[in-house]
């Protein structure tokens, strides 16, 4: 017996042709993912519900309810608190159904688990970027390195040279030790 992802995608895509079906599918998919993620991320970190509640500034009883399979009343405010407690990104945006199908059909425990910032990596950047507060986002993209700031030479990157200005730190920070 075997089942392939393409078959799952094809069947789901066909069913999504029904407006009532796809509206409900979106509504059902959100709590499925969130409930599983909250419990998974908490357990991966070795936290009890009480510990997560303390870190998120919530009651343990609320965490318990949120981890119950029938909970579907998540608010953005609550999700932001939970994301901050886990130190992970929170993605809330509208997207195409094709993206949903890809996500659902290839769902795995690895997709559900999310590293905290301290364990996270950004491709191509070896050193963790820790940004001083109070700097505009574009100008904060400099390494929190104890050495003095030095502007990176992007001249070898052709057309990308125009983005140099983004990375130029304010003079006060450039000389900061």
């Amino acid at each position, binding site marked *: 017996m075997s*089942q392939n992802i393409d078959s*799952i995608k094809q069947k789901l895509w066909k*069913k999504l042709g029904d407006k*009532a079906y796809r509206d*409900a599918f979106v509504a059902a998919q959100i709590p499925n993912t969130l409930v599983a993620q909250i419990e998974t991320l908490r357990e991966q970190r070795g936290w009890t519900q009480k510990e997560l509640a303390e870190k998120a500034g919530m009651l343990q009883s609320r965490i318990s309810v949120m981890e119950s*399979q029938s909970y579907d009343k998540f608010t953005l405010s609550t999700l932001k608190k939970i994301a901050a407690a886990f130190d992970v990104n929170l993605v809330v945006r509208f997207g195409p159904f094709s993206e949903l199908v890809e996500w659902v059909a290839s769902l795995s425990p690895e997709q*559900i688990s999310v590293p905290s910032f301290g364990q996270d990596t950004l491709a191509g950047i070896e050193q963790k970027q820790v940004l001083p507060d109070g700097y505009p986002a574009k100008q904060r993209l400099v390494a929190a390195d104890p050495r003095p700031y030095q502007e990176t030479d992007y001249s070898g990157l052709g057309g990308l040279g125009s983005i140099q200005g983004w990375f130029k730190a304010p003079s006060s920070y450039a000389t900061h030790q």
Partner: protein
Amino acid sequence: MWHFYDYIEPQSGRNPFDDWLRALPADAQAAIDARILHRTGMQKWPEKWASLYKGTKGTSKIIELRIPWNKVQYRPLGMYAPNHSFILLEGAIEKSNKIPQSRIDNAVQRQKRFEENPSCVTEH
């Protein structure tokens, strides 16, 4: 990754779980499909999502998937099979914390038939 299969009646070729599912409102079908697809990708199946139905006699091990949707308790009934497979045998709606006995009986009978003839399934 888990694999879901529908039990097929060997003689008639009927797919009882699919018949049950298609008779439900579209939104309920979506909620059930969403849960099944989600479980497909999950290694762990906590008790809150899927649990052993405790009302069967003998050696039957019927598993109920717990799917609440719009204040209705949907209960796809099935069984675990080798290689991370789950066979959907029947569907039911729980009322007053009870699943209709006829649905359980159907699931138990189909479980026996499946064990005699494990090829009588199709991809969910």
